């Protein structure tokens, strides 16, 4: 299988690799997937006034999974948490020209975005 130029670009030059301290109150963390399924995605967001000011990822998975999470961090930055929550996997599929067998990578990225936002919301409600 050959990869699209955009997948290759994100794979070879991934954006926003890294981690934030997950206990900080303005950080939301989403970890989805499982090692035995062959992919685990960790997305983190840093939020100020409900706007995502920074994002990081770490991913265990195929090239398309890495590209999907790299793209997700790019797209989240500058959006409000409500806007980020609306990001659809189909948009990722389109942007990266993912073939049908790789759609699950984009689903995982969408799940990771939602998990990170929900984690942040939970923290905010709990007032930690």
């Amino acid at each position, binding site marked *: 299988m050959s990869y699209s130029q955009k997948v290759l670009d994100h*794979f070879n030059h991934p954006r926003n690799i890294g981690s934030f301290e997950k206990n900080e109150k303005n950080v939301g963390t989403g970890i989805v997937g*499982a*090692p*035995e399924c062959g992919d685990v995605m960790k997305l983190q967001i840093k939020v100020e006034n409900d706007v995502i000011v920074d994002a990081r990822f770490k991913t*265990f*998975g*195929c090239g398309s999974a*890495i590209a999907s999470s790299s793209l997700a961090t790019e797209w989240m930055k500058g959006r409000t948490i409500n806007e980020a929550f609306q990001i659809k996997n189909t948009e990722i599929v389109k942007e990266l020209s993912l073939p049908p067998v790789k759609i699950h990578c984009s689903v995982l990225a969408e799940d990771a975005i939602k998990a990170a936002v929900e984690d942040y919301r939970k923290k905010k409600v709990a007032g930690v």
Partner: protein
Amino acid sequence: MKFPIFLDNMSTTRVDPRVLEEMLPYFSEEYGNAASRNHPYGWKAESKVDESRTRISQLIHCDPKEIVFTSGGTESCNLALKGICEIYREKGDHLIVGATEHRAVIDTTRRLERSGFRVTYLPVDKTGLADLEALKREITDKTILIALMYGNHEIGTIHPVTEIGKIAKERGILYFCDAAASQGYIPIDVEAMGIDLLALSAHKIYGPKGIGALYVRKKNPRVRLAPILDGGGAERGMRSGTLNVPAIVGFGKACELALAEMETERERLWKLNEKLRTAIESSLDYVHLNGHPTQRLPNILNMSLEFVEGESILMGINDIAVSSGSACTTATLEPSYVLIALGAGVELAHTSIRFSFGRFNTEEEIDFTAKRVVQTITRLREMSPLYDMAKEGIDLKNVTWKRE
């Protein structure tokens, strides 16, 4: 160096120039049908086919008449299993098959199960060796065939075929051995090993694709086989169809070269193998060898590089052609059942990479590969959440994962 470096010689090999040269006239001037009995075109083709039969028989120590040409390893496995089951059905309906056999065997026995045969899949230990005590226990008076390969195509583990042959013989059961991955790399002697049927393939040993053979024992015992193709009754009635003369010529030459160069080549390939393994092991943590440490084909190195997914490794080292047991790299999207059979968890398959060396690989290529692999794994681990967790001392088995 020519890029991408080809370290996927278990998938196929480049045709040796000496093989190609010997084949060429049989496409053009010598185009006779080996079954034509009444003119020189046929005679010449037949005599060259006979010469190839002899060359192949010398590689495995059998009588040339015991060689049945097929379209390749897959057909040889199909013919052996289906052919035996059809003829010996009256005698019994039970087969014992290794869990790590090639798909050409496993898929065939699955089909045979659907038509009423009972199949026991024999487990292997963590190095890939079949449990021979279990083999003895599983044999019943209805068992007609044992199918256990010689060297494994993914991990290289070499089965103790002589012992298996002895067990089969003691119980009066036929022994079919798939040698497509190991022929030409390690010695085969069907007589000494007690093998009754043996599958061979030309393109794994620098011969052309689309040609293989099945060794079928003629005496002690005389093995009978029902054909899976009808039409004319060539190859002692076991395989109809006009013989692919140029390919057979190439196959014969490939066997002759493999036999002549086996000892020196075996040593050279082990050296390359060990060189790559030690280079990777000394530079990276969390790496494991898959397969048997010593009882292994000299041309296979299968390793799991923990916390990095196989397809991403292949993508990262795109100037090297290798394969992986990761689900993402297979047509079925299933992780390698061979690696899963080793019992160390499916993660082992997802993070696996198989290097397979060949006649045309050089030390320089191995040095380049080692460097490239270490570089890529280091880079990918920087992106891996699992590597972080392992470094923090978290046991990944105790983590509750959010599955899709």
